[in-house]
């Protein structure tokens, strides 16, 4: 079987670094999928991306696929010949359409009876024939976040396309896209290589580009950056290489060369976060730390050339970072001229949300909510009060206006400068935590209280004015806020009913400011987020539903039930109890009889006597267990009812002819069901 290597490269004007990987991987999977679907096999595929190219190299690609046969079905055999045994028009028509004589047709049995048909031999497809179309489709399916046109043509891509290189072994396959024709020509490095580069063999793709100062493999570029950056750290220093920055920097160059520059150590008096942000967000620099974690007054930039004068590049970058750091230092100095608390006046001028007032209003509400819930979280109310009067003040500081990502951190610096306690400062910083799923929770009860209060205010307020998130629209990040509330409540306010938490928020608004049913709506929204919260622990939606059916609205209580259920589930015992519950629920649902209490005198069968007895003997323990949150123990008690229940269904006729008997038996079932429902609705878990 002969095979060759296929190499396709889409040459482009610089694509945005953040999109390269997704686009290249899509191109690769599109091509591999198309090749598989064409019945061709290959050994290996590899994908490459740089700012100026997306490429896929597929090695060991079959030149021709295996021949196959396919069955073509015609009319039923019964309808193929008439009474005289002659071919019917249906049969003749089918044979003609297939280009064969009717005599060549055979009978093929199908699930729907015998059909007239034929076996057709299909020659394998030739890679050279099908690949161009496959690539055309794959290119069309590359995700393009924002489409643009260029020149005087109608086609669109993320940036203008400059060339198509398509080689199968040594042969150019013809492909026309974006008004360009494929060729064996590519381009080397924008500055270190002149003119076009001709590729003789697809196998040489990577080595030829490397010879022309392009490292096509992103992983290799990242490895080079890592080692060069690390090598620029001096004794006692560590270069901090963040994965996302590394990927971004790797997507900005074809030939990475790391260079180290420095800045005036005087800038180190500025909060390190501001310095790092200036270096990282604006300039894509890596920073360095000493062993004690302090910042080194240097940066590492990754250039795209082997400069004839590296010093020019270093000095140039130093010139750029200097005014940025000077800005940060200036903001830091001016902000500190007034106290953080004095900035709270300016919060009145900043809108939080049109109908929900200013940031001053929000901060005031947060304070009231925090004070209301503080006792439940064992937080010191004086400290909570002090801190929540300051938490949003840094939002009007020059520093945060320039570096929005430094909200909270900046406030903490300024609070310490004003002589506030470490705890108050840390609350200001930590009340934004957890910032994302999996992020750390606030570290003190006081910070937790304020963080929770802030989220409650946002959820209640935004829901209250009808801005409910839908689909991909969630401008106030309420989903994230909800998951944060769930985590914090489970950690620190396990026993506080959700409605109580939220009411502390809704009470801060005038009655006409938010909708009446806001607390109910937000409660439902939070409960709906629980599957997302428990997704990672592998707790299924049905188990969650079984616990929620009890109507519990306290996160800790719900979780206790959940964990008890998870331990209980999976046993044969659990399955049988779940099935019994479902059966009971169905029977009860069909009946509309008024049920009172069990009439012991009407118990006729042994099985029903035993069930009632068993029920009565466990009921007190179950109530006690549930009221103290020992749901596992309650489930154990309920499990002891299994045999009596099974016997009951085996031996007792619920739908007895005597209406009094029937009603009494339904009453037994209802009480049984109520016992179970104290823990969870097992019926939901029945298979």
């Amino acid at each position, binding site marked *: 079987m002969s095979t060759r290597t296929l190499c396709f490269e889409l040459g482009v*004007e*610089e*694509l*945005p*670094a*953040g999109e390269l990987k997704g686009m290249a991987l899509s191109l690769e999977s599109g091509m591999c999928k198309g090749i598989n679907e064409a019945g061709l096999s290959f050994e290996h595929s590899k994908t490459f991306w740089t*700012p100026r190219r997306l490429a896929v190299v597929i090695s060991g690609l079959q030149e021709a696929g295996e021949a196959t046969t396919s069955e073509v079905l015609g009319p039923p055999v019964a309808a193929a010949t008439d009474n005289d045994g002659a071919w019917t028009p249906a049969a003749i028509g089918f044979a003609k359409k297939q280009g064969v004589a009717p005599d060549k047709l055979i009978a093929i049995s199908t699930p729907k009876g015998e059909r007239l048909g034929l076996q057709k031999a299909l020659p394998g497809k030739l890679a050279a024939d099908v690949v161009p179309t496959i690539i055309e489709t794959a290119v069309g399916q590359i995700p393009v976040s*924002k489409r*643009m*046109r*260029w*020149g*005087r043509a*109608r086609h669109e891509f*993320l*940036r*203008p396309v*400059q060339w198509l290189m398509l080689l199968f072994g040594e042969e150019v396959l013809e492909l026309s896209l974006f008004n360009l024709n494929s060729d064996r020509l590519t381009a080397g490095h*924008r*500055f*270190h290589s002149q003119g076009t580069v001709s590729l003789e063999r697809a196998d040489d793709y990577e080595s030829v580009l490397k010879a022309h100062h392009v490292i096509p493999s992103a992983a290799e570029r990242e490895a080079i950056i890592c080692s060069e950056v690390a090598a620029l750290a001096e004794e006692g220093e560590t270069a901090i290489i963040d994965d996302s920055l590394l990927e971004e920097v790797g997507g*900005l*160059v074809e030939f990475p060369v790391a260079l180290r520059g420095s800045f005036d150590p005087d800038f180190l008096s500025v909060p390190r976060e501001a310095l790092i942000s200036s270096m990282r967000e604006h*300039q894509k620099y890596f920073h360095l730390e000493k062993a004690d974690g302090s910042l080194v007054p240097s940066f590492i*930039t990754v*250039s*795209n*050339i082997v*400069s*004839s*004068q590296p010093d*020019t*590049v270093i*000095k*140039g*970058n130093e*010139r*750029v*970072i200097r*005014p940025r750091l000077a800005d940060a230092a200036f903001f830091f100095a001016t902000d500190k001229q007034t106290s953080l608390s004095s900035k709270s006046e300016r919060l009145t001028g900043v*809108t939080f949300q049109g109908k929900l007032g200013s940031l001053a209003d929000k901060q005031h509400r947060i304070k009231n909510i925090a004070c209301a819930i503080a006792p439940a979280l064992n937080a010191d109310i004086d400290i909570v009060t002090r801190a929540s009067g300051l938490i949003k003040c840094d939002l009007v500081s020059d520093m945060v206006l320039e570096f929005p990502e430094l909200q909270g951190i900046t406030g903490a610096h300024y609070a310490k400068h004003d002589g506030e306690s470490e705890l108050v400062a840390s609350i200001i910083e930590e009340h934004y935590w957890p910032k994302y799923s999996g992020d750390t929770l606030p570290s003190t009860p006081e910070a937790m209280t304020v963080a929770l209060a802030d989220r409650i205010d946002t959820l209640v307020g935004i829901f209250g004015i009808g801005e409910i998130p839908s689909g991909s629209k969630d401008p106030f990040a309420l989903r994230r806020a909800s998951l944060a509330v769930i985590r914090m409540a489970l950690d620190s306010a396990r026993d506080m009913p959700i409605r109580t938490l939220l009411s502390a928020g809704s009470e801060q608004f005038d009655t006409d400011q938010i909708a009446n049913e806001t607390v109910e709506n937000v409660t439902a929204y939070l409960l709906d987020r629980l599957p997302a919260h428990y997704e990672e622990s592998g707790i299924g939606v049905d188990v969650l539903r079984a616990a929620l059916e009890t109507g519990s609205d306290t996160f800790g209580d719900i979780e206790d039930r959940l964990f008890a259920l998870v331990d209980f589930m999976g046993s044969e015992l659990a399955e049988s109890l779940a099935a019994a519950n479902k059966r009971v629920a169905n029977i009860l649902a069909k009946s509309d009889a008024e049920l009172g209490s069990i009439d012991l005198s009407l118990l006729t069968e042994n099985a029903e006597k035993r069930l009632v007895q068993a029920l009565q003997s466990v009921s007190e323990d179950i109530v006690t267990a549930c009221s103290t949150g020992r749901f596992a123990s309650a489930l154990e008690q309920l499990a002891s009812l299994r045999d009596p229940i099974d016997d009951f269904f085996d031996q007792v006729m619920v739908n007895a002819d005597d209406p009094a008997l029937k009603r009494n038996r339904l009453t037994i079932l209802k009480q049984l069901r109520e016992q179970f429902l104290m823990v969870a609705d097992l019926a939901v878990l029945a298979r």
Partner: protein
Amino acid sequence: MSSLTFQELILGLQRFWGENGCVVLQPLDLEVGAGTFHPATFLRALGPENWNAAYVQPSRRPGDGRYGENPNRLQHYYQFQVVMKPSPADFQDRYLDSLRSLGLDPLEHDVRFVEDNWESPTLGAWGLGWEVWLNGMEVSQFTYFQQAGGLECFPVTGEITYGIERLAMYLQGVESVYDLVWSETPTGTVTYGDVFHQNEVEMSHFNFEHADVPQLLNYFEFCETEAERLVSLQLVLPAYEFVMKASHAFNLLDARHAIGVTERQRYILRVRTLARMAAHAYVDSRARLGFPMADKDLADAALAQREKSEAAS
């Protein structure tokens, strides 16, 4: 090689782009916030006609004034603007050649095209492209126009905007814009400060403290009605001048903090509405002339398309 003076830099860019097929124009004699407002960019980007031009445009951003005290911020500065329509396939290469012509060797300096998407809310315009980094410093904006005045741009105009003070500061190695050498003359060195410092100081006072708010508010209204009236008279270019004047009046009012946050958004929308109106009227006026500067096939297609949509409406 001694570095280029400020005026040599301008002359060099004019020569370079003149030799690259651009009509070298002179600045627009009206206050505008950026070279994009010049009719040679905004209006010429509309419709199917070809157009290649280069020019310096003094740009005024009243809110950016710093009383001549900040070495990097000016309320009046220069942009060097290049527009090529349709955008040529080698537009990036030509830009790099222009840097080489100024003595910037991309094998010495690290030149990078970094994603930047441009949008002008007041002009109802957007495009995709890059900011160009020279050793980490943004020295140019590079944009492929997709829409202007709410209309699709076809063919696409490629636009390059050089921040020439920045570029000159880099080439001359000075830390303050006021230290830039504008020109070496027989009677001595003339700096950017000699030419513009007093202007920065006085204009900052004017912009921030003395611009007459009630008059400007009236003037904005006047410009708005005037633009509408002139469009109805099919006097498109005068109408567009009033759009630019309205825009500048708004910028001054903004610098005076005379417009609240929500009000501000409404003003931007009003300017955009005017820009959109002028854009439509401009394309209509060119269509009446038969799009004389367009490739024949594109002119015919555009005219046919217009006929079809007129018949439909």
